């Protein structure tokens, strides 16, 4: 019954999708949930890479400074400032979503389905500053390749001969670099990378009337499709979150030197999750991250978002779809052309990294994979009204077991203690007639007499299986080897 309704509501959604972006907006697990985060827009088009870095710097803006390794000396035209709003649009559009469905009352002969949605998730950066040029070369072995003024920022492009000089130059010029940065400056210098160094000009900023630092966008051509995360890593244990909004013409973006895993999706969760969806997603993410060994990149959204494409863009959409101009601002310059501008494929990746688990910078590849994916969690509101008819009692019974599953799912996904939520089931049980109520089977949940259940996950079981296979093989191996020698 409830399953039919689900399908009904999905069908409704599909029918509407071309004309309207669906649903009410309920809640989202957006990027701002995560502390110590950075957000990056990464556009890859052939050999071209366009990176936009959000500078949500915590602290006094006069202390803001940033060093980013880049593969080439950037031209003035390769650097621009975009509005922070672009990040907000992309974040809200792609963030994990909570959807609501309503069960119809089986005692009344009409069905009604509607959906609401909720959600999303977030990211961060580093800091530095600048001064003179011939001195830089003579005393530090640092060459100032270019010097630009871009909006409120002063930008320098540096190249260096060795890390000590660069490090001293940066420190002497008030760029604070993480204490572990020396580990990576040398490799970056020897790999031929330049350093894109940014400081804020307070006077210009005030004159322009901006209160917040606006994102900086750079573009360059290089075979390298990567994000140099090592430079910004604080220390060996601390973790940082980064959200990558990636755009390509072909399809999904995949990490090549780390696993890319998907968040569990399309799971039914209890109604009370609605009020705490952000918290739920945070816990879910943390659990998944631990479960995958803390060294995986997580996929949160993958969709064809070509502006002129009429297919369904999300189910449901969390925010309004980005407008072509917003794509262009994000660096997806081919999206502005409505006729034959080419496909725009949007991949949202969430990386929680630490020095210990992410020894290498993040390298990516563009794949032709255009399969759609979204992290989506489903709430189902029970039918309202009198449910005393036979069908209504059947429905309540199903609802009871469904709710037990939702609780179980909540525990499995986010690790929440569900023992305090016995009332979620009792609400339904109360509405059943006594004989039906007594015939309910135990649910296996902790507050049921049956007690909780445990057991190794499928991964563990599989590992055990493979180990035993190897053991069996190893047992036969010596025998067959000796057999062969005697033969």
């Amino acid at each position, binding site marked *: 019954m409830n399953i039919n309704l689900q399908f009904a509501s999905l069908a409704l959604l599909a029918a509407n999708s071309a004309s309207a972006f669906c649903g009410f907006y309920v809640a989202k697990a957006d990027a701002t949930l995560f502390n110590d985060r950075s957000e990056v827009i990464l556009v890859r088009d052939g050999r071209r890479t366009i990176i936009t870095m959000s500078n949500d710097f915590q602290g006094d803006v006069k202390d803001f400074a940033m060093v980013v390794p880049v593969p080439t000396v950037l031209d003035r035209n390769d650097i621009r400032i975009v509005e922070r709003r672009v990040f907000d649009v992309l974040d809200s559009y792609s963030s994990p979503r909570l959807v609501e469905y309503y069960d119809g009352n089986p005692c009344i002969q009409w069905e009604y389905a509607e959906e609401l949605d909720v959600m999303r998730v977030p990211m961060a950066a580093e800091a530095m500053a600048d001064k003179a040029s011939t001195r830089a070369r003579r005393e530090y072995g640092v060459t100032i390749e270019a010097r630009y003024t871009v909006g409120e920022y002063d930008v320098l492009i540096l190249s260096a001969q060795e890390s000590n000089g660069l490090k001293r130059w940066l420190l002497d010029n008030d760029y604070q670099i993480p204490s572990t940065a020396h580990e990576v400056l040398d490799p970056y210098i020897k790999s031929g990378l330049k350093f894109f160094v940014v400081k804020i000009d307070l006077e210009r900023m005030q004159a322009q009337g901006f209160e917040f630092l606006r994102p900086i966008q750079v573009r360059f051509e290089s075979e390298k499709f990567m994000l140099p995360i090592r430079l910004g890593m604080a220390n060996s244990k601390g973790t940082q979150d980064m959200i990558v909004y990636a755009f390509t013409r072909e399809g999904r973006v995949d990490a090549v030197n780390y696993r890319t895993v998907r968040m569990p999706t399309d799971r039914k969760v209890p109604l009370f999750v609605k009020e705490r969806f952000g918290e739920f997603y945070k816990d879910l993410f943390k659990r998944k991250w631990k479960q995958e060994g803390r060294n995986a990149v997580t996929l949160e959204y993958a969709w064809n978002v070509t502006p002129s494409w009429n297919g369904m863009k999300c189910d449901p959409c969390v925010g309004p779809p980005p407008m072509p101009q917003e794509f262009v601002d994000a660096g997806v310059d081919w999206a502005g052309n409505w006729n034959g501008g080419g496909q725009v494929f949007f991949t949202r990746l969430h990386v929680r990294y630490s020095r210990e688990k992410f020894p290498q910078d993040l390298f990516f590849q563009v794949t032709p*994979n255009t399969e759609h994916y979204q992290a989506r969690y489903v709430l189902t509101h029970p039918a309202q009204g009198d449910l005393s008819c036979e069908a209504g009692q059947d429905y309540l019974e199903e609802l009871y077991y469904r709710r037990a599953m939702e609780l179980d799912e909540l525990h499995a996904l986010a690790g929440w203690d569900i023992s305090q939520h016995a009332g979620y089931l009792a609400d339904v049980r109360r509405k059943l007639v006594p004989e039906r109520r007594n015939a309910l089977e135990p649910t296996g949940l902790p507050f049921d007499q049956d007690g909780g259940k445990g057991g190794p996950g499928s991964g563990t079981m599989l590992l055990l299986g493979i180990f035993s296979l190897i053991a069996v093989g190893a047992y036969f191996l010596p025998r067959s080897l000796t057999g062969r020698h005697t033969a």
Partner: protein
Amino acid sequence: MFQKKIEAIEPHPAKGVQQLRTTVMQERITAFARDARHFQIVFLGGFLLFGILALDWSRRAEEVAVILGTTLATQFFFIRRLGLDIRSWKSAAITGLGLSLLLHAGSLVTLALAASLAIASKFLIRDRGKHIFNPGLFGIVLTVLLTGDAWISPGQWGTGPILLFLIAGAGSMVLLRVGRIDTGVVFLTVYMALDLVRSMLYLGWGFDVTLHRMMNGSLLLFAFFMITDPMTTPNAPRARVLWSAAIAMVAFAMGTFAYVHTAPIWALALLCALTPFFDRAFGGARFSWLAPAPFHDRAPTLNVEPTLQER
């Protein structure tokens, strides 16, 4: 007296049955162990299940079905046409599993294309009775190049000691049986040495960077299950060492300077094409799956003349 006789006889039938059972078991086990392909099928199948269930690969059942179905169908087509030994289906199953582990594509048709190209290459691209390309590799390379709809995800295995153990353990077992472990070991050694020299000694990265690269499951799978394919490696041990070192060098150069993340695959394709030259220059006996394998080629007189049945 009479009673005693019966007692004396009775234990025998029971013992006989037991013995028979043991013998049947032993024979089955020996038969299983004689052909290293059985181990290969079991391990590759295990890896595939592990990837799907524990590593959350987006590998769908119908994809595996299409790949395996197409490889087997193509193999049976050639078995009938050329009158080959029916047991060669095992090689096709290995190719199918290999493709299921490595190749991704947007459509089932692309996967079927890769599978049929892979098997067909064994029968159509040959030199002196030996096929040139590792079939799975050939299917992958051609499909990726031609369709634009296929790709490899080198990061899908992640990294970890447990992977090293699993893949290396399983791989070396299979390899010890066929005597081509030298290729995998030489490849890994040279590749790691090159990476150490560049990453650690020249660039100044920590050892963990090299280690992270070496622990990559895709690389290990490549080293222990792909490059070691006894049918497409050079026959002479010395030739194999040179050949696998060359693969490591080409792969390293492509990966480091051109940022080709699937470099080992392309390097292997390149060097496979050169295998006939290595065979001509160094000689050596051809490998056969069913012969009592020449352990490190110490029994070169067996199967010098390749027969159709062994394809």
